[in-house]
């Protein structure tokens, strides 16, 4: 109870600070001289507090009884060093059930130099351009739904899907009457935060991550089509308990000289095809994705490869500047070759009402009808196998965000 009060107090303090900063920022934007001052620093930030309640099954947090463990706070600073060079940094902290726990991290930081419109380079920690919305998947103000389609943007995979540390090339290439191409190519590594992982996993590293995104801006303004691909490998060690080791040895599954650690290599290839159309107040997006993940263990398990299938269709409309309803349907098959049984799929129909109360504050109400238990976490559900959880269930989300 005291922890919840502390979080509420923290949120209030940050919101008050953001309100102060927002007035400062507005005053700066209104200052004509400041807009031309190359030494001015742009400051932007947000604080989000949500509530999640499910009719059945714990989802993302201890949601059956209702949970306020749904908080995001970010603050960024960007400075134009010249009309070609920019530096920026964003601090981010969040809490979502067992994830985050208010650990403050660098969400991104970079040095950006744009040689031409068709060629720029960034170095540092940069958001991964995977699909339409991965880069802003934890930025509530940047989208209509409180929860993006979890099939393509799962918050539980945030650590290795959100950002990489390395380099990136980007640019916009005009195709004259045929529109334009926007490309992003990146490579580097991911510094994994093991706080959110199983205690048995140690020495988690990502030897490489690379990929790219190519989007075609069609001649019809607001229409873009494209695809993204990402390849990475996660290495880790899994430590067996003495009892487990004895049992596996007795069964002849472990060599006699086994020292207790299993080396794991998880190479993965992810791709997504994307389409988005934004016209006037209307927005429609659809994405289809497959993730091919292989598990290679030094002992115990044979090499296995699983392909998951993911996709969604999402629409929204700005009825007024302050009211935007949205709808989406999302589907997820953890194993595209195994689609039977409630644990083999997740169908998610979501409806959102976004209210922009003013230029710095919004409120969202969102309901989900869920069918299937894929994507649920057994550890949040008393270690009950997902195949035994309730098949049809609902989610209610209330979320408010202050931003500037």
């Amino acid at each position, binding site marked *: 109870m005291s922890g919840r009060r502390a979080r509420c107090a923290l949120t209030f303090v940050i919101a008050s600070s953001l309100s102060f900063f927002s007035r400062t920022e507005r005053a700066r934007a209104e200052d004509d001289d400041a807009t031309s001052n190359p030494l001015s620093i742009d400051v932007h930030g947000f604080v989000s507090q949500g509530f999640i309640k499910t009719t059945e099954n714990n989802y993302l947090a201890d949601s059956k009884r209702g949970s306020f463990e749904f908080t995001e706070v970010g603050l960024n600073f960007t400075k134009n060093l010249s*009309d070609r060079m920019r530096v920026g940094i964003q601090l981010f902290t969040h809490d979502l059930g067992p994830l985050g726990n208010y650990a403050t991290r660098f969400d991104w930081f970079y040095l950006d130099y744009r040689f*031409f*419109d068709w060629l720029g380079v960034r170095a540092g920690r940069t958001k991964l351009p995977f699909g339409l919305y991965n880069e802003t998947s934890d930025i509530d*103000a940047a989208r209509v739904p409180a929860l993006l389609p979890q099939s393509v943007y799962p918050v539980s995979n945030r650590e290795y899907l959100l950002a990489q540390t390395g380099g990136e090339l980007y640019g916009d290439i005009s195709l004259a009457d045929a529109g334009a191409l926007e490309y992003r190519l990146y490579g580097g590594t991911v510094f994994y935060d093991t706080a959110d992982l199983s205690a048995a996993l140690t020495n988690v590293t990502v030897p490489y991550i690379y990929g790219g995104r190519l989007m075609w801006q069609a001649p019809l303004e*607001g229409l873009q089509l494209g695809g993204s691909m990402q390849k990475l490998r996660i290495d880790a060690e899994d430590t067996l308990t003495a009892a487990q080791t004895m049992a596996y040895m007795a069964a002849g599954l472990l060599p006699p000289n086994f020292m207790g650690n299993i080396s794991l290599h998880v190479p993965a290839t992810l791709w997504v095809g994307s389409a988005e159309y934004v016209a006037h107040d209307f*927005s429609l997006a659809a994405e289809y994705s497959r993730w091919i993940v292989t598990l290679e263990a030094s002992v115990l398990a044979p090499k296995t490869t699983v392909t998951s299938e993911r996709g969604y269709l999402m629409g929204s409309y700005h009825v007024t*500047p302050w009211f935007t309803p949205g709808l989406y349907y999302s589907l997820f098959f953890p194993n595209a070759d195994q689609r039977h049984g409630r644990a083999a799929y997740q169908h998610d*129909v979501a*409806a959102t009402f976004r209210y922009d109360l003013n230029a710095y504050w919004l409120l969202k109400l969102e309901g989900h009808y869920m069918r299937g238990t894929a994507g649920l976490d057994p550890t949040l559900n008393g270690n009950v196998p997902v195949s035994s959880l309730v098949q049809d269930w609902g989610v209610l989300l209330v979320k408010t965000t202050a*931003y500037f």
Partner: protein
Amino acid sequence: MRRSLPHRVRLLLLPGLVVLALVAEVGFVRAESTPDFRLIVHPDNPATSLTHDFVTDAFLKRTTRWGDGEALHAVDQRADAAVRRAFSEHVLGRSVAAVKSYWQQRIFSGRDLPPPELESDDAVASYVSKHRGALGYVSGNFKLEHVKAVALQ
């Protein structure tokens, strides 16, 4: 065996999609109204007309340079200004709210910053008159001094 979505879910989806379609139609009709703004540049800028695509790219920062290599500085107006609404609908092809959503995505992903928002036609004209690479827009009836109007192709 997988079953299709329950009847009650389909009942929820159908009116939602109908509402989206209807309000979208209203939006498209509204966008056909005559624009009431003029594009302005610095008097030393040699341009006399700009293409629709160039202006769109400039304000979405896909283009950052003029043809002669000069850095391009687009400057916007307040989100609640009538001239901003007209410009946004007619040139960018999307509402002010949709454009702000576009910039929220870029600001918080570290991609870029939006053009500065100035308070009035006077402020925009003043800014453009002081910066050779500036591109702005003002209300159709605004009296131009020390800036040059350019045609939108």
